[in-house]
C-alpha cells in the first residue's frame, strides 16, 4: 500500500515557533514525496491538536503520521494513543524532535534552526514511509516489590505496597530500620517527637504479613527487567540467632568492649554486641566483628555465658537470599556533609563546634546526655550561634540547597529558647528559606521569641582561651560587621548523595543527576520513575527533602509500583529483533552477543538456525549490527529505515 503521510509541525506556543518558522517547515513538508497533508499547529498535544490529526486520518486516508514537536520521550505515547483512537496502528508514527534538537539549542540562530527542523522532518518522513504496523507485547509480572532502604521513605513505601496486597522485601543495610529520622529529636514545625511518630510505623513493618524485612542485608545483584527482576540479597551474619534472640540485652551488659556509637554520631559508646537504639526493629542484637574481642583475639565469649537463650552463634555465615520481584523502589537516603572539609570553621578542632545532627542527639531525651545540651566542659551554653548552609549553596562544595537546614535550625532554636528563654541564639544565614505548610509562620514565631537572624555567614571561627568561639560576620541586612563571642556553634551541614548510590546506580542501570542523586524520568511529570521501567525512587536519594515531602514521594513511588503490577501483566513496546531463518547461516555470533540470553538455536528446514525469544528480547539491537548475514531485523529501527534517514539528512 502506498504511504499517505500527514505531517504536523507543532509551535509548542513559543517554545518552537519563537525560533523556528513552523509555517515554513509545514509548507516544506507538503512538498516531500508521499506527504498528503502538512499543517502547523499551536499545541499539537492538546485536544484540538489531536482531533485535527484524527480528522485528517479519516478524511485524507492517512496511513503514516509524522509529528515535528518535542522529544519522543515526552509525547511519543500520547500520539501513539491518538493514532490508535483513529484506528491506525500506533507504531505508524514517527517523531521529529525539533524542540530539544533545534529550537532550544539553536535559539540564537533562527535560520539555521529552521533549516535543521526541515532536515529532521525530511528524515522522519523518509523513515515513516518504511514504518510497519507492530503489535504490543504483554509480559506477566511478579506481584512483589523490592524496597531498598529502611528509612522513613522505605518504611512508608513498604507499608503502602503491603496494604495494597503486594508482597514486599524491605532491605536495610544497618541492623535496624529507622534511618536518619530515628536519630532526630523533634520534627518541624509541629515539634512532634520524631521517634514517637516513626517507631509505631517501624513496628507495623515488622508485623505486616506481606512484608519480609531483611535488615543488616544488602542487595548485591539485580538481573531481569520490568515485572521480572531477579534480586540477590546478602544477609550479613549477626552472629546472633534471630529466632532465639529476645532482645533482652544481657549480652551487651556483659560485653566488656566499648566503641563509638554510630547512632549517637560518636557522642556515646556502645558495646561490640549491640542494638543501634532501644526501639530498634528488629530488636535483635548484632555482633560487630571489627570490635568483638572474641572475633579479633579468640578470647572472651562473655556474651555467650550471659545469653539466657543460647542465641549467640559465632559460626553464623553470611547468607545469600534470592527473590523475584516485579518492581524495585530505591529509598537509599542521604548522608550529611562532612564539616571537616571546611577547616576554617573549626569542626573537629574546636570542642564547642558541633553539627546540626549532633545537636539533635544531644537534645534528644534518649541521647548521650539525656537531652541536656551541654558544652564540652559540661555547662549549659548561654549563647549559641547557628551557621547555615555548611557545604551547601557553595560552588566549592555542593551547589544545591539542602532544603531542610533552615527549618532544622528554627526547630533547634525553638527547643533551646523553650528550655531557657535567656539563652542568646544567633542564626547566621545566606537566606532563610521557609517554604512549606506552616513553615513561614514558625519562622515568624522564632523572630518573636528573640532569636537574632544575621544575614551573612562567617568564613572563619576562632577559639578563645576560655573555650568560647569568636567570629566576625557581615550582616547584609544592616550593612554592619558584627563580632560575636558565643559558648557553642552549630554547623548546619548539607545533604549529599548516600555512599552506595553509585554502586546501586550501576547495579540497577539507572541514571544520576550531575549532583549524584538519582535521576527521574521527567522532572515534572514523572518525579518518582526511573527511566528504566519498573524502578522507582523515594525520598532523599532522589533529591534533598524534608520528612513530609519524603513520605509523599515514597507514597507516590508505591502507588506507581502498585499501578504497574495491579493487572498482573504489563504491555511493553514491540520494538524487538527478529531473525529471518532463510538468511541465517547458524553461525551463532548473535547468541554470544545478546546480553539477555534471548537467542537460541533451533531447527529450521533440517538446519541449525538462531531464533529470538521475543519475551526476553529488550530491543537493544546489538545482534542486528553483529549479524554477518544481515539476517536480523530490528522492528522500529530497521536497516532500511536508518539508511533512509541518513540519506535524507545528508541530502542538500
Amino acid at each position: 500500500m502506498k504511504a499517505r503521510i500527514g505531517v504536523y509541525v507543532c509551535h509548542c506556543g513559543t517554545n518552537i515557533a519563537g525560533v523556528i518558522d513552523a509555517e515554513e517547515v509545514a509548507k516544506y513538508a507538503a512538498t516531500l514525496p508521499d506527504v498528503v497533508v502538512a499543517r502547523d499547529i499551536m499545541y499539537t498535544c492538546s485536544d484540538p491538536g489531536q482531533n485535527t490529526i484524527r480528522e485528517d486520518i479519516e478524511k485524507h486516508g492517512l496511513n503514516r503520521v509524522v509529528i515535528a514537536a518535542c522529544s519522543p520521550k515526552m509525547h511519543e505515547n500520547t500520539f501513539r494513543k491518538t493514532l490508535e483512537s483513529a484506528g491506525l496502528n500506533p507504531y505508524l508514527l514517527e517523531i521529529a524532535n525539533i524542540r530539544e534538537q533545534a529550537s532550544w539549542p539553536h535559539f540564537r540562530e533562527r535560520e539555521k534552526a529552521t533549516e535543521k527542523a526541515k532536515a529532521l522532518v525530511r528524515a522522519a518522513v523518509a523513515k515513516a514511509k518504511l514504518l510497519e504496523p507492530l503489535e504490543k507485547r504483554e509480559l506477566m509480572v511478579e506481584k512483589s516489590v523490592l524496597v531498598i532502604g529502611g528509612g522513613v521513605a522505605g518504611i512508608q513505601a513498604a507499608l503502602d505496597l503491603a496494604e495494597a496486597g503486594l508482597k514486599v522485601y524491605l532491605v536495610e543495610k544497618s541492623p535496624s530500620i529507622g534511618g536518619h529520622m530515628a536519630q532526630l529529636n523533634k520534627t518541624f514545625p509541629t515539634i512532634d517527637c520524631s521517634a514517637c511518630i516513626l517507631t509505631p510505623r517501624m513496628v507495623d513493618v515488622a508485623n505486616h504479613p506481606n512484608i519480609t524485612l531483611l535488615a543488616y542485608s544488602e542487595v548485591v545483584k539485580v538481573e531481569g527487567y520490568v515485572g521480572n527482576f531477579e534480586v540477590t540479597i546478602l544477609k550479613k551474619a549477626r552472629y546472633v540467632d534471630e529466632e532465639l534472640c529476645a532482645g533482652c540485652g544481657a549480652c551487651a551488659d556483659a560485653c566488656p568492649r566499648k566503641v563509638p556509637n554510630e547512632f549517637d554520631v560518636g557522642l556515646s559508646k556502645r558495646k561490640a554486641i549491640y542494638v543501634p537504639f532501644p526501639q530498634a526493629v528488629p530488636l535483635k542484637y548484632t555482633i560487630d566483628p571489627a570490635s568483638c574481642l572474641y572475633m579479633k583475639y579468640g578470647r572472651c565469649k562473655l556474651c555467650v555465658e550471659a545469653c539466657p537463650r543460647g542465641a549467640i552463634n559465632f559460626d553464623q555465615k553470611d547468607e545469600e537470599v534470592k527473590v523475584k520481584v516485579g518492581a524495585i523502589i530505591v529509598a537509599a537516603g542521604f548522608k550529611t556533609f562532612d564539616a571537616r572539609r571546611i577547616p576554617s570553621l573549626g569542626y573537629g578542632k574546636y570542642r564547642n563546634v558541633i553539627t546540626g545532627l549532633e545537636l539533635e542527639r544531644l537534645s534528644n531525651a534518649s541521647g548521650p546526655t539525656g537531652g541536656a545540651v551541654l558544652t564540652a566542659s559540661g555547662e549549659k551554653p548561654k549563647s549559641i550561634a547557628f551557621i547555615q548552609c555548611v557545604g551547601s549553596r557553595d560552588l566549592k562544595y555542593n551547589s544545591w540547597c539542602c532544603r531542610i537546614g533552615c527549618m532544622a535550625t528554627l526547630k533547634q532554636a525553638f527547643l533551646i529558647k523553650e528550655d531557657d528563654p535567656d539563652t542568646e541564639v544567633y542564626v547566621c544565614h545566606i537566606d532563610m528559606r521557609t517554604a512549606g505548610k506552616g513553615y513561614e509562620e514558625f519562622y515568624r514565631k522564632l523572630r518573636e521569641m528573640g532569636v537574632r537572624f544575621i544575614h551573612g555567614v562567617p568564613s572563619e571561627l576562632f577559639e578563645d582561651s576560655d573555650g568560647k568561639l569568636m567570629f566576625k560576620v557581615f550582616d547584609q541586612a544592616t550593612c554592619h560587621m558584627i563580632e560575636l563571642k558565643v559558648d557553642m556553634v552549630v554547623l548546619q551541614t548539607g545533604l549529599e548523595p548516600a555512599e552506595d548510590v553509585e554502586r546501586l546506580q550501576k547495579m540497577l542501570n539507572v541514571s544520576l543527576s550531575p549532583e549524584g542523586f538519582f535521576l527521574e524520568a521527567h522532572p515534572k511529570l514523572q518525579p518518582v520513575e526511573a527511566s528504566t521501567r519498573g524502578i522507582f525512587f523515594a525520598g532523599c536519594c532522589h533529591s534533598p527533602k524534608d520528612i513530609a515531602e519524603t513520605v509523599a514521594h515514597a507514597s507516590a513511588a508505591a502507588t506507581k509500583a502498585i499501578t504497574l503490577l495491579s493487572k498482573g501483566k504489563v504491555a511493553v513496546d514491540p520494538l524487538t529483533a527478529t531473525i529471518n531463518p532463510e538468511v541465517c547461516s547458524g553461525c551463532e555470533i548473535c547468541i554470544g552477543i545478546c546480553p539477555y540470553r534471548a537467542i537460541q538455536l533451533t531447527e529450521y528446514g533440517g538446519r541449525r538456525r538462531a531464533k529470538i525469544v521475543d519475551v526476553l528480547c529488550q530491543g537493544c539491537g546489538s545482534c542486528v549490527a553483529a549479524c554477518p548475514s544481515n539476517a536480523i531485523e530490528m522492528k522500529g529501527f530497521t536497516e532500511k529505515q536508518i539508511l533512509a534517514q541518513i540519506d535524507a539528512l545528508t541530502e542538500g
Partner: protein
Amino acid sequence: MSRIEYPANIRVIRVMCSSRIDPVHVLYALKSGADGVLVSGCHPGDCHYINGNHRAKRRIILLKEMLKQLGLEPERVKIDWVSASEGERFTRIVKEFVEELKKLGPNPLREGIWEV
C-alpha cells in the same frame, strides 16, 4: 539544564542503544557526504542494555582502523559517552568535534572531491 547552545550543523538519528549502530551506517553517512559521525551512548558500566556500549566502542575502534586503510581520516568518526543528565557534556563534545572537523576540512568523499 536546558537551552544550552551547540553548533546547528549536527543532525541526530535516534537508536535504542549505541550497539544498534552498524559500522556500515557510519560508512554510509560518510559516503553520503557527512563530514563526521558521532556515536554516543551511556557511559561504560552504565549501559541501559547491560553492555551494548562496550560492543559499540569495539566496533567503532575497528572501524577507525579501517578508515585509515581507506585513506580517510579516522578523526571523522568519534565515539563518546553522554548520560541523560549531561547536557553540558554533550554540548562540549559536539563543539569540540565540530572544531576538529573544521580543521580536517570537507569530507573528500563528498561529490566532486573524490570519486566513489
